[in-house]
């Protein structure tokens, strides 16, 4: 993702190297966050599907999966649990999104600094 162009004269200082390293780390974290956000969104969708199914069913006792076992749980309790899990996941999702925004902002700042010094000699874009 990052390369320096050919035959340039610009010197690379330790500070530059640290900035480049930091950009690399942030970029990695960005991709990790994207994955985590996708997983959390899917989980929320599943919860919603499950709770919709629940509304449609007439059974009083629902088989609720805990780990690898299914426990027979009354419908109301299941509803409550799904709500709790949805809330937890949504909060987690918010946190992830906030972190992602912070990472994107830091990356933008670093890009400004690095492009200013190295111009064409450095490529910080996703290929």
């Amino acid at each position: 993702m990052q390369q320096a162009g050919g035959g340039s004269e610009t010197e690379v200082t330790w500070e530059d190297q640290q900035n480049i390293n930091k950009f690399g780390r942030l970029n990695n974290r960005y991709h990790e966050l994207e994955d985590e956000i996708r997983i959390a969104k899917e989980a929320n969708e599943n919860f919603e599907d499950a709770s919709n199914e629940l509304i449609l069913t007439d059974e009083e006792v629902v088989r609720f999966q805990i780990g690898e076992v299914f426990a027979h749980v009354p419908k109301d309790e299941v509803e409550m649990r799904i709500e709790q899990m949805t809330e937890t996941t949504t909060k987690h999702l918010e946190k992830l999104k906030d972190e992602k925004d912070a990472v994107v902002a830091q990356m933008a700042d670093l890009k400004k600094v690095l492009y200013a010094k190295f111009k064409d000699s450095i490529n910080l874009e996703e290929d």
Partner: protein
Amino acid sequence: MATSASPQQPGGAVVAERRGIPAASFVEDVQIYLNQLGLDVNSTLAFLQERLQQYKVVEMKLLAQQRDLQAKIPDIEKCLDALLTDFEASEGIYSRARVEDIDSVCLWLGANVMLEYSCEEATSLLRKNLENAKASLEVLIADLQFLRDQVTITQVTIARVYNWDVHQRRVRQALASQDS
């Protein structure tokens, strides 16, 4: 004149290696670096490329370990969950339970071994395993970050050595055409 290319001590502390992974020394001046290594440009580039490959191998290994841990942790959490909630559900609703008496729990330890524990022992064992797994994961993530930094430094060094060489050739060509 530039200083020599030994491990830096600016701002943050720089380690020479971390848990068996050698650090990539930052190069202040390419000319001095080449003199220190005593190699010509191509050999230096080959050496750096090899270093890069070695880093990649270690990175693959660490990533695999990380994936394993990341799968293990939710597993342990689910077990703990099952343990805690089965108490609530054990009022006769969970009629197909193999463990009806809530005083003992059997934990699968792996390697075809299963042990019976009291519920408190089981809970604390699972909690301890969870803590250990989380701690290992943190160390692993820090290792991976360190590794990625070394990869980046090495990549930049390779580019700089290459650029320096290109620059040298141009200078030599310019001088040669001046003389003739």
